Structure formats: C-alpha cells, structure tokens
C-alpha cells in the first residue's frame, strides 16, 4: 500500500497532461486538415470549448465541469497561438472570455435543447472573434467590412459542426475514457 497522496497527485498530473495533448492535437487538426481555400478554418477548438463549457455548466458538479472547460480554453488557446503565430495568450484569452460569457448566460438553461448549443456557439464565437480582432489586428479596424467579411462568415462556419460536435462530446464525456477530461 503506497501513500495515497502522491498517487493522487500523479493521477491529476497525468489527467492534465492528457488534456493538454488532446487540445494540442485538436488545434493541429484545425490549422492543417480543416482549413479551406476560402480562407476559413472550421473552428474546431472554439466550438469544442464552448460545448464543453455548456456540458460543464449542466453537469452534476458544475464547479468541476466549468473548471475543466476553462482549462480546455486555456490549453486550446495556447496551442492555437503557437500554431497560428499570434502572441501567446491571444487565442487563450479570447476563448476564456467566450467560455465565461457562455457559462454566465447558460446557468439557468437546459443545455440538452438543440437551440442552446447553437446560441451558445453563436455568442461565444462572436466574442472570440471580437477579442481576437482587438488583440491581433492593427488599429484602426474597419469594423463594418470586418463584420461582413470575417465575423459573420466565421460565426456561420462555426455553427455548421456545432450540433454533431456537441452530441459527440456529450457522449464521449459520458464514457469512462473521457470522464476526467
């Protein structure tokens, strides 16, 4: 019988490492396999972070679920920063703010309804893109054209995979393998 304290620490570290590796892999997939010739990449990481936030808020232990979702946002954002050559922390901050907004707004909602993930991704992506624009674009930002050319298409592209990803994630998080992610 070993000391249970170090063992728990090891398990926690292993889970955290697994979370980081999973998010780095997802970010890699987003920037390589999911880019389109039109200049838009399917925002896999942002959509998953928002869906994870919703599932975290709706979980039996919302504190734990939301904490995990926020760590997804940090790791996924940092991975995107490394891959997208943006200042380290820019994507992470954008994702964290989007996750916080979604968590705050969805507290009293039943996340199982299909409209909830769609609305959450719509709002979350909007916040994510706005924060990212403020952090990475040189001023002055031409907001009217930026909205038409970047913001609206990005939000629409994000909505396409939302429901499949949401229900897939819910299923995976319900399984033993992904229970701790």
């Amino acid at each position: 019988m070993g000391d249970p304290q170090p063992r728990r620490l090891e398990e926690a570290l292993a889970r955290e490492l697994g979370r980081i590796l999973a998010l780095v892999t997802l970010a890699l997939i987003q920037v390589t396999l999911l880019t389109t010739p039109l200049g838009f990449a399917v925002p896999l990481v942002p959509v998953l972070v928002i869906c994870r936030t919703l599932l975290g808020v709706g979980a039996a232990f919302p504190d734990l679920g939301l904490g995990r979702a926020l760590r997804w946002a940090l790791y996924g954002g940092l991975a995107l920063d490394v891959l997208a050559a943006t200042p380290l922390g820019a994507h992470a901050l954008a994702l964290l703010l989007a996750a916080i907004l979604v968590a705050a707004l969805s507290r009293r909602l039943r996340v199982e309804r299909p409209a909830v993930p769609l609305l959450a991704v719509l709002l979350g992506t909007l916040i994510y893109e706005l924060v990212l624009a403020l952090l990475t674009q040189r001023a002055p930002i031409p907001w009217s054209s930026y909205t038409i050319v970047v913001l609206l298409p990005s939000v629409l592209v994000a909505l396409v995979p939302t429901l499949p990803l949401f229900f897939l994630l819910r299923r995976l998080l319900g399984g033993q393998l992904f229970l701790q992610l």
Partner: protein
Amino acid sequence: MPASGRPFVLALGLCLLAALLVFLDRQGLITPARQTLQQMIAPVAQRLTALRDGAGDLATAPRGAAALEARIAALERENGALRNQLIRLEQARVENEFLRQQLAIQRAQPWTLLGAEVTVRSPDAGRRVLTIARGSREGVRPGMAVIGQLPGTPAALVGIVEAAGPHAAEVLLITDIASQVSGRVMHQGRAEVGLVQGQWQRGSRLQLGQIARSLPIAPGDPVVTAGLTAALNLPFDLAAIPADIPIGSVEQVRVAEQYQLAELRPYVDPDQVRYVWVILSQDD
C-alpha cells in the same frame, strides 16, 4: 449552475495569466519559447498539411475521359487566349521597354532564392498569415519578400516575412490589411508609384492607392513592387523589398480627390500556394 464562485475566480486567474502572456510576448520576452514550440510542432503540422493538400488534389482532379477532354479543351482555349495576349503585349513598345528595364534590374540585382514549404496557414479568418519551414538559421530575416508561383502564373509577391524563428518564419500575406508595400503601376510606357495595401478584411484582395491622376491607369495594367517603401516613410521595416517583383494587375479604377485608387487582382493567390521562395539577396 456553479455552486460557488470558485470557477469564476479560476476564470479570472486564467484570463490574467493569458493577458500576462500576451503582454510578455509583445515585449519579446517569451517569443523565443513560442518559436521553439512552433518549431517542435512544425514537422507534424507540415505532414498534416501535405495530407490535406493531397486529399484536396484527389477531390478536385478530373475524373473519366469526358472530364479530361473537357479539361484539355479548356486549357487549349486558355492557351489560345494567352497566346493572343502575348502577341499584343510583345507588339507594345512600352511593354518591351518595361521588360528590358526589368531584365536590366534583374541582371544588376540577381536574387538568391530560398525555397520553403508552407507548414501552417492561419486558422483565423481575420488574419492572412502563413508559416514556412525556413527560419533565421537559413538566413531568413523579417522584411524579406516572399514569392510564389502557381501553374499559369508568373512568380509573384505573396507576402513579407514578419518574424523569423530558427527554423520557421511567419509570412504576412500581401492580402492582409496590415500589409503595405510600395508598388509601381505601368501604363503606355509611363509608370507611377503608389501604395499597395491588402484588402482581404474589407472584402477585396489588394488596393493600389496614392496614384496621381495625371497617369490614366486602366484595367489590365501590371503592378510590380517599386522598392520605395522607405521613401514613402511608412512605419514598417520593409525598405529591403526588391523592385520589380510582380504583384498583380489592375481590375478596377476609381478616382478619390486628387488620387486614383485601383482594385488589383494578385498574380498569385497567396491562399493557394504550397511552396514559396524567400528572396534572400534583396540588399544586393
């Protein structure tokens, strides 16, 4: 809903951490660490990008004899049109003069090119940036011009090196709104220098501005780099871009006060390139 305020305290802490990282990276304090991580991930990213490009080729390749015949017919039509265009261009004295000038400049300033594979394209729709698998160890420096070529296009400017790590570099594409380079438009033997700015975030691709109204430019006029960015006193370190790199051609012209503005079609679509060349000897 969360039972306590703990997640929001965690959120605040993580936001502060992210903001601190942004600040430190902007100060250049953790940029080497980011570039090292980028370098570690680059081989995997490069393979995945190649995989995706291969899949794209497979999806868009013509299938069956009928599709191939149609493709050949289209190419023959395009070839004929290009030949006609070439004859017209060759007959134009001014264009000949320009080509001689260009040739003279190229002879006087031989460029040393460094080939580089595109590893990652920016996942953000709001930024036109790509990462290439060459860096400062191979002589790549910020401000260097990056050219590309697609089938049927001349080798043309696609971007400028914005930052260089040891084995990877970030290239700001000319279509990004932050990209500004001096360009020279030619029309009937005359040339005028203006400013070529990216317009992707404004719904277009390139715009040529600050062209005096005394030179009537028209659709089809070619635009090349002027190599005069420093003379225009722009707040960017782009003075080393060589002159006479093709950029694109004029599509539409409109007049704004005492200047003309022209929408440009880039010769090479920066979003389509998979392999680029960095002009290393731009100072020669």
